């Protein structure tokens, strides 16, 4: 028992030392990036989850996941966070009909920020000394992707309302072709793995 407690204390000491080293050596760029990840994840939960759940004990989960994304972007936490957002979104819209267009579009933007920010933070050490202009192309590309998403999102969510509540065979065919195209592209990307 004493040996177990000693090992436990040793492990805790090592982790505390590691945290102290990280705090001491961390540079501004990676810190801002990781803080942005945490904020984006929290905002994503605020948009996707039901409001009533955000003021209960269930709030612990999104906060923990958001902090996890910032602290461990290389782990499975970003994926779990995005899945939790999507599940919260499904629960949120389960009771009602079609949501307002802003909600899925905003959620999509925040999910993408968490995804691409975690991808960038995962390969950028916390104590990196960065050249000027390192982050600008990343920010511009993210903004461009979100802008395209906004356009596509409005097209997807508003066109059915304009067309009306009746079924079109052509729309089903276009949808199927789009599905096959996306699936094929994803399979193509996967096949090029080395």
């Amino acid at each position, binding site marked *: 028992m004493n040996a177990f407690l000693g090992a436990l204390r040793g492990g805790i000491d090592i982790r505390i030392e590691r945290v102290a080293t990280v705090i001491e050596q961390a540079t*501004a760029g990676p810190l801002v990036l990781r803080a942005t990840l945490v904020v984006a994840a929290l905002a994503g939960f605020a948009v996707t989850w039901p409001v009533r759940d955000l003021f209960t004990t269930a709030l612990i989960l999104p906060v923990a996941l958001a902090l996890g994304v910032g602290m461990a972007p290389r782990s499975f936490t970003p994926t779990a966070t995005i899945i939790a957002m999507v599940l919260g979104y499904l629960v949120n819209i389960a009771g009602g009909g079609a949501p307002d267009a802003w909600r899925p579009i905003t959620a999509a933007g925040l999910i993408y920020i968490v*995804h691409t920010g975690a991808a960038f933070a*995962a390969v950028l*050490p916390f104590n990196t000394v*960065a*050249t000027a202009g390192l982050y600008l192309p990343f920010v511009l590309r993210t903004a461009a*992707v979100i802008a395209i998403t906004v356009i*596509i999102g409005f097209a997807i969510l508003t066109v059915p309302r304009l067309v009306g509540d009746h079924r079109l065979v052509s729309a089903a065919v276009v949808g199927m072709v789009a599905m096959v195209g996306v699936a094929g592209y994803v399979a193509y990307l996967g096949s*090029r793995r080395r």
Partner: protein
Amino acid sequence: MADFGGSRVAPRSSDSGPPGTIRRGSLPTRSSRRPFAIDLPDRGTDQPPEVEVTSGWVPTRAFGRMVLLTGFLLVLAVFLRRPDLVVLAAPLAIGAALGLWRRPQAAPSVRVTTPTPAVSEGADLNASMTITNHDPIRYDLVVARLQHSRWLEVKHTGRPYATALAPGQTVGIDLDGRALRWGRHTLGPTVAYAVAGDGLLISPAGVAPYADIRAFPNTDPFQANDSMPRAAGMIGFHRSRRPGEGGELAGVRPFSPGDRLRRIDWRVSLRTRELHVVATLSDRDAEVTILLDLLHESGMSGGARGSRSVLDLTVRAAAGIAEHYVTRGDRVGLVEYGWPGRKLRASSGRRHYLTVLEWLLDTRPSPDGREPTVYTFGAAQIKTNALTIVLTPLIDPRSAGLLARLARGGRFVVAVDTMPPEQLEMLAGGGRPDDWLRHGQYTAIAARLWLLERSNIIAELREHGVPVVEWGGGGSLDEVLGLVARMASGPMTMPR
């Protein structure tokens, strides 16, 4: 955001020079007040080649996340008939499509160069790292981590460097720093990887080779009088007892055939009405053998501006003594007493002094206090007419034995104590409260006993005619050198 102090270099196509050649600086020079100031040599051939990181890009974990989430959301959208779920998946797919539309093939190349591969201990060091993107695809990120010898202080030491690289672009990063201690040091290797495709692809980590840095020891200032036990050769600084061409007046004698006309002493010749010439003693050079006792190292080295270890003191003293005698035209050789027992043949001149400095860079304490083998070290290798200066901390009784053997063999031996005085004071005083000397009940007592034993050994050596003197720089050896010279002028008695 930190600033490298580096410079962005134009793309290679418009670059007039080869990549990586950022600048060439002038070599640092030794102090001009020194009698034998030497510009340290520049070895351009020490520059390592530019090495390309091994190609073979692989998907990152984010790639798998993108595939998983896109598929998951699209399947949900179909089964739940929710087009808004397609919107959630849209940016992931769009980002991947934009990022992976064109994939990188080539890998970045990294190179660490220094225009000053040879510096003085404690002097500034100029170096740079260049990273080049040879691919037509932009790299989102290149992370390079530089490792280096602990005796080099480099700007942003211990931190990785990150930069984004446009196609064909080269980035130069300044790695200015300082060489903290003498010796051969390495700047590198550098481990680097690149990330592209919106963070979805990563190149394997590659290793660029290191650059060699030679930090020459700071020579302790040393001056000594011209007392030499024996001189050899017909040129040099020291006067001999033999008549010949030289500057030392030996007397006036009658002219004889073969005498040079410019040697005629006209005043004496007019007075005596017979030709007389000025007789001089010939000038001779001497051979100095510096014997480095490397059986043991003691103390912690703090570099050029910190505390001194035995090895620091030994190397700096050897460099100072060699500089002094080489400057005066004497021949200086070096011998290691320790494993592997290297030896540098005695010679003189500026080039030889540089050779001495190079030789000293490889000085290491003997592993496990191992003695050199009889094939590499022996008293027979030290000439009998050479002045032998033994730099020894007198830690090991074998060192005292070596000194005694050399003295009995008829060598002119001077022992220079290279144990730093601060260490002796610490041992005598019992150390500070946090020192290892305070650990254990008998440690401090044992240290004092060892000091007494060492004092006894030194006294015995002096009784046997081996002068032992503490190293104190300029003038510290004058007294013992004079003593040795007087002993050499007397009759030699060999013990039975």
